[in-house]
């Protein structure tokens, strides 16, 4: 995407002006670090069941879910009323120095240390109870909300198998021979989800054909057009709901990388169904830590606001049959609201021979949308391309020969 012109505000500046008025939305659960107990029996043996679509206690078999994040955090207020900049309390800037944390087991009093950059639960080594991080440590590991898996692992394996199966013919051998369903993992990937109340303006030129005619030039005719040129200006408000941007550096940015475009093409997610975060939802899955802050992605978000504005304007300029050339554009951000949400992805990666790029097949853990990159055997592909090329060439050669013979006879 392009950069702002010299002398004009840099990308993201409109968002930063709104950020000067920042409020923090408290998205913390009222639970202390340590034992995160079953509300019915007090056990800590809690996991997430995709079949039940709920947290369940393996001791008393009760099941429940954390409250819907949007409603419990008061995010269902109209976007039109948004002013300034609101951040979920887990969306504050990531601190790299906050990676170690000591949890005190309320069962036996032992202190258990864990690396909260990649681990939010641990067992007390004395009494074996499960300890959970419930506070929003600033490592980026704890989000405001989580969108739990809805698609079963078996279904994800079937979809990945079908994806590879339908691309078997030209795939590299290690892909087709080495599909290992046990290497399909459930991963939570962090997104920054933003609502925006913005005002957009665009200025440009549009042309309408008034006459089309042909002029003889030598022995052939040339088509010309007369056209009216119009100054085209549009100014409007946009209320954008749940625009999601990847907030893990390894999956963000350059979509030319196989990993990035696969993960980013799995959107959209029904983030309005996300629930308040509890580390029990991550039990049995892995999760990627957020390592991008709002200030790292605000330029991209502002570009997206402008892209949305341009797309919404297209129906208003259909009368310009020769097209519209937008020349200036801008947004004023009146208000934004940001939350970090973990979204569920089933991920399968190949183990390539040394030197090869790693390729992924991924399944949206909510909708089942499957996307992937299958490495191609260049030898097989060139061979397959040469056959139709040769056939077309030969057929046209024969046709040309016949036409030339026909012309010679006439």
């Amino acid at each position, binding site marked *: 995407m392009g950069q702002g012109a010299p002398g004009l*505000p840099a990308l993201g500046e409109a968002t930063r002006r709104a950020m000067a008025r920042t409020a923090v939305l408290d998205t913390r659960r009222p639970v202390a670090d340590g034992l995160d107990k079953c509300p019915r029996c007090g056990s800590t043996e809690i996991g997430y069941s995709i079949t039940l679509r709920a947290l369940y206690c393996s001791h008393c078999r009760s099941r429940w879910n954390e409250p819907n994040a949007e409603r419990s955090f008061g995010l269902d207020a109209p976007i039109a009323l948004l002013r300034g900049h609101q951040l979920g309390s887990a969306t504050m800037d990531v601190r790299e120095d906050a990676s170690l944390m000591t949890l005190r087991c309320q069962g036996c009093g032992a202190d258990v240390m864990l690396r909260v950059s990649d681990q939010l639960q641990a067992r007390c080594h004395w009494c074996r109870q499960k300890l959970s991080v419930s506070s929003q440590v600033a490592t980026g590991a704890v989000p405001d909300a989580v969108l739990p898996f809805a698609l079963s692992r078996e279904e994800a394996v079937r979809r990945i198998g079908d994806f590879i199966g339908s691309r078997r013919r030209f795939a590299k051998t290690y892909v087709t021979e080495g599909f290992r369903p046990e290497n399909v993992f459930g991963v939570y990937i962090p997104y920054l989800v933003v609502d925006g109340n913005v005002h957009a*303006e665009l*200025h440009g030129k549009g042309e309408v054909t008034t006459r089309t005619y042909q002029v003889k030039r030598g022995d052939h005719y*040339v088509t010309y057009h*007369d056209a009216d040129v119009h100054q085209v200006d549009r100014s409007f408000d946009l209320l954008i709901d749940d625009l999601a941007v990847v907030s893990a550096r390894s999956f963000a940015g350059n979509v030319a990388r196989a990993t990035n475009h696969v993960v980013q093409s799995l*959107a959209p997610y029904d983030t309005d169904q996300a629930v308040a975060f509890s580390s029990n939802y991550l039990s049995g899955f892995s999760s990627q830590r957020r390592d991008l802050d709002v200030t790292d992605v605000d330029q991209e978000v502002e570009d997206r606001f402008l892209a949305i504005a341009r797309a919404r304007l297209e129906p208003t300029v259909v009368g310009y049959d020769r097209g519209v050339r937008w020349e200036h554009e801008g947004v004023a951000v009146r208000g934004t609201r940001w939350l970090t949400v973990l979204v569920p992805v089933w991920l399968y990666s190949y183990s390539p021979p040394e030197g090869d790029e790693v390729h992924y097949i991924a399944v949206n853990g909510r909708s089942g949308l499957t996307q992937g990159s299958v490495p191609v055997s260049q030898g097989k592909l060139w061979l397959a391309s040469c056959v139709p090329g040769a056939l077309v060439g030969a*057929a046209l050669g024969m*046709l040309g020969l016949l036409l030339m013979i026909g012309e010679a006879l006439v």
Partner: protein
Amino acid sequence: MITDLMILADPMLLAGGSDGDYPFGVLAAGPIAGILVYLGIYSRYRNKDKRYRFESESKVEVGNMMTRDAKIKHRRRVSGSRMGGANESRHLERVRRMQISG
């Protein structure tokens, strides 16, 4: 791609309106068909063109639309059915940024 191949297979198009172009068109048709097959298969396997079209699929409400369309001049005898630099459908391409107030 099938359409492309059909166009290629049309000897009138290959002839390009002059006798001298005909052998070149015939010679080029085979490699072009091969390249199209290559690109089609590669694209299906690697899927690099796939992306979420957030600009048209995001949940968005539009309000207070103000439009102004004013004729500024008339152009005569222009060739081509599209104006130069038309970009109304290229939503991801950014143009000169201006500062506005909300």
